[in-house]
């Protein structure tokens, strides 16, 4: 078991991000975390990354507390950012100097494939910044990738490029946990989907199972969360 959450509740000052959440994540899965705004997707991913600590319950990732294993996972947050003066080359210097698992050849390939301009991020559009951050994230060779809304606020063409690179870059022994609103676009990517509503798991199903029942992920999304 790559990661486990057991009875996890995360309480903020007045609200709860997730409530009594229990989830097992196996190796090599592509897991989609779907839900409306405020359903707990970001909280779940941040708990797995070790950016947040549970109020009650336990989180174990790669055999221990996630923060201790932070060098063995990748977290791409929705709101985290690079420095405005950073160019792709500076980003490479940053990542290569801090992460042993960073692969520069893969990074250059991804930069070309995602058509990231060689400029400072302050001179990039939001889509270009998102693509650069994704290139940095996917250039690391780890067992667990946590991607929080990697498609949010990004133009259609960039989204297509990102999804294609995700499909290309996925290795059979790596696990990807991805949260998104763009359910329809990401549908083909997921092996398993977890629907969150109000911080709880509303449905946890294999995509194949859904297809056998003749339902698409999008339809299930509407059914479960409408």
């Amino acid at each position, binding site marked *: 078991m790559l990661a486990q959450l057991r009875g996890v509740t995360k309480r*903020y*000052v007045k609200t709860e991000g997730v409530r009594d959440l229990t989830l097992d994540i196996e190796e090599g899965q592509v897991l989609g975390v779907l839900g409306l705004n405020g359903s707990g997707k970001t909280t779940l991913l*941040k708990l797995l*990354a*070790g*950016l*947040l*600590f549970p109020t009650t319950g336990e989180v174990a990732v790669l055999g221990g507390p996630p*923060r201790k294993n*932070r*060098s063995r996972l990748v*977290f791409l*947050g929705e*709101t*985290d*950012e*690079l*420095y405005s*003066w950073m160019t792709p080359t*500076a980003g490479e*210097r*940053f990542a290569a*100097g*801090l*992460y*042993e698992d960073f692969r520069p050849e893969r990074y250059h390939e991804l930069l070309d494939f995602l058509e990231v301009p060689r400029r400072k991020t302050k001179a990039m559009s939001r889509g270009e910044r998102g693509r650069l951050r994704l290139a940095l994230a996917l250039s690391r060779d780890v067992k667990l990738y946590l991607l929080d809304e990697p498609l949010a606020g990004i133009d259609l063409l960039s989204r297509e490029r990102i999804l294609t690179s995700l499909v290309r870059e996925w290795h059979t022994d790596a696990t990807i946990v991805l949260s998104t609103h763009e359910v329809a676009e990401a549908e083909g990517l997921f092996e398993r989907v977890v629907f969150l509503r109000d911080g709880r798991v509303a449905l946890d199903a294999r995509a194949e199972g859904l297809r056998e029942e003749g339902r698409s992920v999008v339809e299930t999304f509407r059914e479960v969360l409408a």
Partner: protein
Amino acid sequence: MRGFKTLLWLEYRRSRVWAAAFLGSLAFWFWGLNQVTVRDFAERAGIRVAIVGVAAAVGLVVLCFMIGRLRGETRHGQYQVLLLTPPSGYVHVLARAVFALAAGIVYYVILGGLLWWVAARAGIHPDAGSVLQLLLAGPFYGIGSVVLPFLSWTVLLMVFSSAFRLSGPSWIPGIVMVAGTPFLFRWISEGIVNVSYRLPAWSMFGGFTRLIEAAEMDIETEVVITSQGALVPQEPLWIMLALSVVMLAIAGRIWQEVEG
């Protein structure tokens, strides 16, 4: 310590504009010194020394602001990225402190040089030993006992306040720490005064006191007399250095333990 070099590089890239402006401001202070055109050379020297004193204080404030921009990174999301990098919080804090300290050392050594220039203009020509005291001993004493503690306190303040970012207004920890510090500092300084002068004191600026006496007697003298100068206690330096290390270590530990 893997990653320290990269974090130091990061701090340099992040702060080089600030550091350049900070060091460049010395040109402004030098220009200011040149603007003092009072006839009486002793008064002129006195005003200029005061200006250098102001430059020292302003420099400290600027350095603290430079290292304190850590807070801005929590709002713009870089802090969260850094929290998940492999190096420990101690290494992150150390990299920032080392960069600010390096900039500070250059600044205060040059200020020492400016004092030398002021003295030369007043007809006071210190010997090599006194020059070394101006350029090295004095600045390093000041850096160790004043600048580094302030920098460490600023880092601790920023990291401590950021620890509460997710749980409500972070002005509460800011206010508590800023309000509580003067009282804690008063008790610490009372303690320092009590233990001072137990270790052998250092004689500093010996040549200058004799020379200033000579200058006050209106004798333009090129002869340098070295003798016992002000006796400066060692204890404050070591105690403040130790406190700085403790504050930086606590800041590093908090970094390890906080949520993003």
